[in-house]
């Protein structure tokens, strides 16, 4: 009897400690990534990184100014394309939904969210690069835009749903039409949540590499306009990391540090805002 009890207590203690160990490992990985990137990336980070073009192989120095601008342009295009569709779709699901059709839309959105980014890249390639016969910023922006849609839809929907019904009823009781209620009461009430959701959405696609490989491709120089291939930070990290030059590896670390700092800052701020407001959609 006592032996049995001792065994049970030992099992209890061992297993519970093991779960603690699992947690320690999982959260330790993040600190490791952060620390390593901070040490390696920040060490070689300098002003040139933000202001200079990449130098030819063998020549030291240079930066990734064109990739930073390229990434910004791609994200701008992506939001112009993805946010309106995603936002309006979310409004539909939250305010006019309720039918079998909206269930279908919701399910499709979730499935689109699960489509591997590289497959979205193929889609943008066949739709824009193939007919135009050249890589372009436009194609990369479209790929990222498609990736933004599902999260924009679902986060807009969730935050609109979180607005209390009494607010809507109040507006309608005052004689406002449904459209007016949505536009002047419901959306303003959910504004912060929706904006934060879109920031998170942007942060996610900012780090995407795979869909850009054969849409916006890459560029060693500035890319004026929207019709030429452009460099982007994540793609530069990839190219520089697998290249055999030590100098390029250093640049890859710097780029990685900048990208990660950007993505994590947005995430931390957004999550702090959201933790006061409700669920965090991903």
């Amino acid at each position, binding site marked *: 009897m006592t032996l049995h009890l001792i065994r049970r207590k030992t099992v209890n203690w061992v297993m519970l400690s093991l779960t603690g160990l699992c947690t320690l490992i999982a959260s330790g990985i993040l600190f490791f990534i952060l620390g390593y990137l901070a040490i390696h990336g920040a060490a070689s980070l300098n002003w040139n990184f933000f202001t200079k073009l990449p130098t030819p192989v063998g020549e030291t120095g240079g930066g990734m100014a064109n990739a930073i601008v390229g990434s910004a342009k791609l994200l701008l295009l992506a939001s112009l394309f993805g946010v309106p569709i995603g936002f309006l779709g979310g409004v*539909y699901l939250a305010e006019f939904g309720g039918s079998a059709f909206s269930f279908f839309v919701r399910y499709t959105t979730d499935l689109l*969210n699960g489509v591997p*980014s590289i497959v979205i890249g193929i889609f943008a390639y066949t739709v824009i690069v193939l007919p135009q016969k050249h890589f372009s910023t436009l194609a990369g922006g479209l790929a990222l835009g*498609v990736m933004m849609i599902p999260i924009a839809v679902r986060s807009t929907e969730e935050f609109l749903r979180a607005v209390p019904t009494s607010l*809507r009823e109040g507006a309608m009781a005052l004689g406002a039409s*449904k*459209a007016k209620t949505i536009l002047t009461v419901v959306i303003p009430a959910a504004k912060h949540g929706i904006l934060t959701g879109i920031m998170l959405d942007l942060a996610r696609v900012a780090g995407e590499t795979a869909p850009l490989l054969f849409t916006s491709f890459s560029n060693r120089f500035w890319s004026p306009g929207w019709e030429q291939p452009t460099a982007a930070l994540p793609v530069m990290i990839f190219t520089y990391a697998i290249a055999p030059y030590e100098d390029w590896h250093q640049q890859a670390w710097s780029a990685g540090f900048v990208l990660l700092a950007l993505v994590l800052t947005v*995430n931390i701020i957004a999550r702090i805002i959201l933790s006061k407001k409700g669920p965090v959609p991903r």
Partner: protein
Amino acid sequence: MAATSTTVASAGPSRPAPSFVQRLRSGDQIAHLITFGAAVVVLLITAWLVFELYTNSVLSRNKFGWKFLFTSTWDPVAGEFGALPFIYGTTVTAALSLLLAIPLGVGAAIFLAELAPPRISDALTFLIELLAAVPSVIIGLLGVFVLIPILRTVEPSIRAVLGWTPLFQGPFYGVSVFSAGVVLAIMIVPFIISISREIILSVPGDQREAALALGATRWETTWDVVVPYARKGIMGSIFLALARALGETMAVTMVIGNDPKIKASLFAPGYSIAAVIANEFTEATGDLYTGALIELGLVLFGLTILINAVARLLVVSTTSQGSAR
């Protein structure tokens, strides 16, 4: 005005239908129409995506048929394309990553949901969810320059314990199916933790109290009562993680070795579907080559859609929150 529910369309069935112009004038119908249009666009884009993948892989599908999935020659020069090595690589790396990530993820989820004080649990979950936001190319960067050197040093001890199995034979160059599995595990663990934790948290408290009152230890309560109760949702989180592992591109491309051969050993380099598309798409010469790569994309699409669909049904059936992921 019927303002009882905001989700039900306003017009009742018994009222005479107003004319189209009348309905537009109210503004409600315009708002309905515009947002409805956006919802339809989401559906259209998804359908268009499938259509493009299907039509652009026609050359390869017509030439190889189902054989494409079961042959292992990948010879762009001779125009022979078989997807088996890539399907194998994708499957093995995903399976390996699940093998590593499930115990780690479920264990951590149990700790965070059952043992840790709420404030610590929330803080740690916050950190772990940040890990999910780290871009894949950065995980790949660390994989190449940090993880592979680490694996090189632990490789002899793995070999000493498991070297007798065919899985750990042959030389280890660093880039390998094994490294890809480890990198993937790091990437999917946050998903398993954060979803499983929420599902375990949603298990009613009286389940635990009943078990504890019967004299069960903390662990017995967790393992024999709480976890079985949350089983479906945990399975869902694992399926979601699997779908991600299958479609993950950059990190895998950087550490898997990119060698289209089927080898039993996990220490040998391999290749995955996503990696071959990433590496060869821009270099593909000729429509057949491109077609074969797009067909690989179609295969990957089908695989992830199938697993996602199952996962979402599983998670949705346990909590209403899961569908948002």
